């Protein structure tokens, strides 16, 4: 498992069908993406579960603003 921020941003971006890859950086405020919906939130939870093997909750997504914020939450869980 690649736990770098760059890998996380890439994994995050891969869940989106229409938004170009260059729209995604660590500092991206994900909720402002046009493609973002409650469904995408669930898709991200599924990705985190599959790749990072930890549970990201709806509340944690709600409390985060940028992709980096999400990364920090996930990495903290990965490291126990």
């Amino acid at each position, binding site marked *: 498992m690649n736990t770098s921020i760059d890998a996380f941003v890439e994994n995050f971006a891969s869940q989106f*069908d229409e938004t170009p890859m260059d729209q995604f950086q660590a500092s991206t405020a994900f909720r402002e993406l046009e*493609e*973002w*919906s*409650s*469904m*995408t*939130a*669930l*898709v991200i*939870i*599924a990705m985190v*579960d*599959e790749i990072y093997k930890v*549970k990201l909750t*709806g509340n944690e997504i*709600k409390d985060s603003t940028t992709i980096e914020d999400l990364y920090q939450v996930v990495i903290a869980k990965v490291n126990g």
Partner: protein
Amino acid sequence: MVISGFGIRLKRIEESDLELIRFWRNSEYVKQYMVFRDYISPEMQLAWFKRVNNQNNHYFLIIVENTPVGLANIKDIDVERKSGESGIFLSSPEFVDGDLGIRATIVLLDFAFNQLDLIQLHQTITEANQAAQNFNKHLGVQIVESDKGISKGILLKNNYFSKTNKIRKILNKYT
């Protein structure tokens, strides 16, 4: 009839539920996403119920923790074509934040494709309902027509199950 799954229940509507449904349908929040936006009187609501209370239409209250939060439906079922129209609304913006809508939708559409044995579902979505448009793409809905602010979509059974595979696994794991 009650269908359960993913932490929600769909309960087939009865006459005693009509007041609540009418209240929701007349509210500004719900009305804005509907094609029919005129005031609905108790008589109109009852007449509607008598028209739809049959095997070709399934209207459900979406219930979470014993609280009804919205309405879900499979209507105008064509038995020969194995098709129907699906729809859903949540009664208040506070329910939209979160995965409640998704869970209700998956339970509804699973019912349509599995129990009702349908192979395609149509949707009518108003332009104002951006959230629904985005949402539907993840379900595998394809837009076939768009005119005067109203879009018509179609969802095929195979597309639905392949597109929702990951979401279903996560919902199974975490509810």
